[in-house]
């Protein structure tokens, strides 16, 4: 299961392209003719993981649907940085309505296309983690429950970035946000709250649920393409580090996503009809410190007033992910 890795060939399928591979074995992003769904001139921060993840995903969806695609977008950074009136970066038919209703808008579009008999035109809806796990959650759950023919993509940067880094139900424990300040005995976001939306989506029994990161392009494209081959409700959550909200260097965006996966902090897997069918294995397991340390939002865990006990709890969460999904090379998933 999982995407087809090419072993060896210098870099195999680790890099975006690879001149040693046949053109059809290369990624969509490697192509000179990729659709560049979000073109240059958008106003995302330097090194924005969301801008990158959205282009990766929508370009792959465009490739799979032969350019016959409509996107509905929730409010959030992705919408605001791409489309400040009267400009837009989008190279696809794209609609924005509200913060909380992107899944419902997409459902409507899918229904309209069905009525009009346009079966080749496909629909994606997309939003940030806040729009998805919090305010848009009701609409999304309905969309899943009705098995509407929509691929919903959540760009998970683990907070409400567009309005100044407030906590969402996807914010990890211990992280500093504007609303979870590093004060008190247990600084930062609380442990034991929040939602695991991929698992909630799986619980709806929909045809396809997957997670991906901007550090694993081949896996991401494979999942988007696979999702586009399926009819009905599908959900992909893409891990997109945010240099501004996380306090990381603008050139560390992909590194952070890689570390999240390699530490087990963000499990990368896919599931069909509620059952896990594949995981992306950890290549070189690392302790969570490696992931936490470069991020200012976790700075209060280190240094003079360090919180090793909180780091240990974050490590326990990562270890649990590893156990639960079988993320190590020799583990069964």
């Amino acid at each position, binding site marked *: 299961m999982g995407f087809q890795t090419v072993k060896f060939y210098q*870099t195999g399928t680790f*890099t975006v*392209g690879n001149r040693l591979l046949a053109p059809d074995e290369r990624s969509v992003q490697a192509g000179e003719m990729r659709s560049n769904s979000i*073109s240059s*001139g958008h106003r995302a921060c330097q090194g924005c993981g969301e801008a990158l993840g959205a*282009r990766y995903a929508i370009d792959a969806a465009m490739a799979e649907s032969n350019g016959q695609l409509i996107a509905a977008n929730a409010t959030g950074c992705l919408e605001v940085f791409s489309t400040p009136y009267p400009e837009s970066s989008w190279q*696809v038919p794209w609609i924005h309505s509200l913060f909380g209703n992107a899944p419902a808008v997409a459902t409507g579009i899918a229904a309209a296309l069905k009525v009009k008999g346009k079966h080749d035109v496909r629909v994606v809806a997309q939003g940030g983690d806040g729009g998805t796990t919090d305010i848009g959650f009701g609409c999304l759950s309905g969309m899943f429950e009705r098995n509407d023919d929509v691929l919903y993509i959540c760009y998970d940067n683990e907070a409400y970035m567009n309005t100044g880094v407030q906590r969402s139900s996807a914010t990890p424990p211990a992280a500093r946000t504007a609303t979870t300040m590093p004060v008190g005995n247990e600084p930062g976001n609380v442990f034991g709250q929040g939602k695991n939306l991929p698992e909630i989506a799986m619980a709806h029994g929909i045809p396809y649920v997957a997670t991906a990161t901007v550090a694993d392009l081949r896996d991401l494209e494979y999942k988007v393409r696979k999702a586009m081959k399926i009819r009905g409700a599908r959900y992909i959550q893409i891990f997109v580090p945010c240099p501004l909200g996380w306090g990381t260097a*603008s050139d560390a965006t992909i590194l952070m996503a890689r570390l999240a996966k390699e530490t087990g902090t963000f499990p990368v897997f896919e599931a069909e009809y509620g059952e896990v069918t594949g995981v992306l294995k950890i290549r070189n397991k690392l302790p969570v410190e490696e992931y936490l340390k470069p991020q200012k939002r976790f700075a209060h865990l280190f240094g003079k007033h360090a919180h090793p006990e909180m780091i240990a709890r974050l490590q326990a969460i990562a270890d649990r992910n590893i156990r639960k999904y079988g993320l190590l090379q020799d583990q069964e998933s």
Partner: protein
Amino acid sequence: MANKPFAITLKPGTSLNNLTGSWRTARPVYLDRLPPCNNACPAGEDIQGWLFHAESGDYEQAWRALVENNPLPAVMGRVCYHPCESACNRGQLDSSVGINSVERFLGDEAIRRGWKFAAAAAASGKKVLVVGAGPSGLSAAYHLARMGHKVEIQEAGPLAGGMMRFGIPKYRLPREVLDAEVQRILDLGVTLKLNCKVAHIEQSMQDGGFDAAFLAVGAHIGKRAMIPAGDAAHIVDAVSVLRSMEGEDKPMLGRKVVVYGGGNTAVDVARTVKRMGAEPIIVYRRTRDKAPAHDFEIEEALQEGVMIKWLSTIKQAGDSSITIEKMALDDKGFPQPTGEFETLEADSVVLALGQDVDLSLLDGLPGLEIKNGTVQVAPNMMTGHAGIFAGGDMVPSERTVTVAVGHGKKAARNIDAWLRGTAYQPAPKHELAEAGNLNTWYYSDADKTVRPMLDIIRRQTSFDEVQGGLDETTALFEARRCLSCGNCFECDNCYGVCPDNAVIKLGPGKRFEFKYDYCKGCGLCVAECPCGAIKMVPEDI
């Protein structure tokens, strides 16, 4: 309409009016860094450059790129001590790229397929004399001929190759290989005069009407040691022994042969006499780790049954035995006598204590500077006498085939410039591609391919080649282990990872360009370039 996205009629994307390049405080720029392998190659090979072609299976192009700098890849792939591999960045990941084995594969492939050098440049009308057909002379001749000069090599010996033929034993360098690579150089139109010892360089230049000369006579006079010896003691020097292996009359050394010295020559002589049925024992005054011979050579000799007495000097030689004295290393690591003696059976003693240069052809030449028995040369390889250049073992430097080849190339370039009345300006060196410039996450895990070794019985009894070569699949695998340090290998990462679409892909072989109108200077492309072929440069603000 076919390629237009659904429902799009007008050209979308007015965000292109927003030139986000103005946000930038530093800009990414593409560059070529100097791979450490290239930096370490004494022959100045562009190793990463030829591996690049080998990686895609284009062996002929790889070979052609290789011979731009070194005309003897099949020889190199056997006798070079590959300092490139010691410097290879992959050594810090798992193990260095087997550069030398791929080089040999390419050299052998060229011989098998009969690849020839590209034709020489238009004739310059100049004539250059090369003295000595060792690696240095051959290399100079090759480069000079390709630059369009008329080249004549005058060689004292009966065959070309120098120490590659009369020093390095067959079991390390089969003579067919050497012959094929020499012939290919001669096919460029180089004249080779054998059995033609130059007695007086100026005379020979005058006689032949030469405009310049390159001297590469090597170092062939075996150094002697003061060993009190009886009349009947049989003492010979290593170079003569090895030389006579190439002739009709094989050396008569008896059964017990003592080889005195700890360098490569000592090891080669010992392994040679072992193959002739004798029992060699190497006597060396210091320890194994202090011996100038390479450790792998010592290891191979030990495997073949060569005995070695470390920390020993010869005190006295008789007709069938010698006396050795045990040594001990002092604080500074120098061997000091202990007064403890031992007697060893010895039918003969072979001295392998290094070689001196025969400088007689330079007698009376004005301007020359000789120091420690070697000819001093300027950075352009010219001796103190205008128009006479020198290289290889006869000038001060490390004495290896690869250094000799490098000298030949460098001298050729400078001779060419000198003949045109200019000075050769080497291109400025790129900054080094260090391990810290790489993002090694992207490379596949792959252990080094081990070259096959001949079985031990045949190694002890025949002169068959000891080390085997790679075949096509293993050579391809090995080439693909290269990280392409500092030089774009078109992985498309920069093109892919830019969140701002600010990288233009120019197509296969053409690399990439930045769209500075939109590049925000985030540095992601730099961080995610596997091989360190991009760097950030601060903007002047």
